[in-house]
């Protein structure tokens, strides 16, 4: 699982055109559809993160004593949304390739990314709330 291998599918024409250089056999259409739904579900997760980040920055009242608090919470969420969308596409390409070759599906890193981010945001939220409560 080298870095170049993970991102190779993002290059236009490199893969994902259905006949990505290495031939396999066309998988069961249901598997292709399921892979696509998984990608779409992660896309909605990414969009929800962007909505959450924007809502924090735009709609919350400012934290007393922490003027940049809302941006500290919102901007990473929005950036993570963009990252998640790109990773979701690269994993769709990898899964599709594995399906064509009948290989076991590669492990997904996205649950790890999401869990780490949510934990990190929880820590930042707690720190900001504590600081604004003390002041």
């Amino acid at each position, binding site marked *: 699982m080298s870095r170049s291998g993970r991102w190779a599918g993002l290059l236009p024409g490199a893969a994902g*055109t*259905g006949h990505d250089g290495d031939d396999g056999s066309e*998988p069961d259409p249901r598997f292709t559809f399921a892979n696509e739904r998984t990608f779409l579900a992660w896309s909605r997760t990414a969009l929800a993160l962007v909505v959450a980040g924007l809502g924090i920055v735009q709609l919350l009242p400012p934290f007393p004593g922490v003027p940049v608090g809302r941006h500290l919470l919102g901007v990473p969420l929005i950036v993570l949304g963009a990252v998640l*969308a790109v990773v979701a596409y690269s994993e769709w390409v990898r899964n599709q390739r594995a399906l064509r070759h009948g290989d076991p599906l590669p492990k997904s890193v996205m649950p790890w990314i999401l869990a780490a981010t949510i934990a990190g945001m929880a820590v930042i939220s707690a720190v900001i709330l504590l600081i604004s409560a003390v002041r």
Partner: protein
Amino acid sequence: MTPAPPPPPEPGRPSGGSQPGPDPEERDPGLARERTSLAWTRTAIAFAALGGVVLKANVVTGLIILAIAPLVWQLGRVPARGGSPGASLAAVSAARLRLITVSIVAVSLLSLLVAVLGRSVPGALR
């Protein structure tokens, strides 16, 4: 009272193969197609929701994102018209999934600009 004999193993189910079985989906892969098209609809709604939130901060940007939603919805209808799940299925998917990825990245960049530069409504949820 003798215990009932165990039910016969369902043919085709455990192997997960593509031979027809009692599972309605194995007789009609159209269900997978329909579930996928519903997933596209949900994604389009998610775009519209984001557009609604942005609308509160910046009207023009919000309208742009809202306009993406029907396009995504249309994108999800392509395979229903295309018909045959042939060799082109994954190719069609790759093209439109790449399009979705690009739109989400673009939309999050727009949101970032609105979030950082835009005037926030102070205490809109107060």
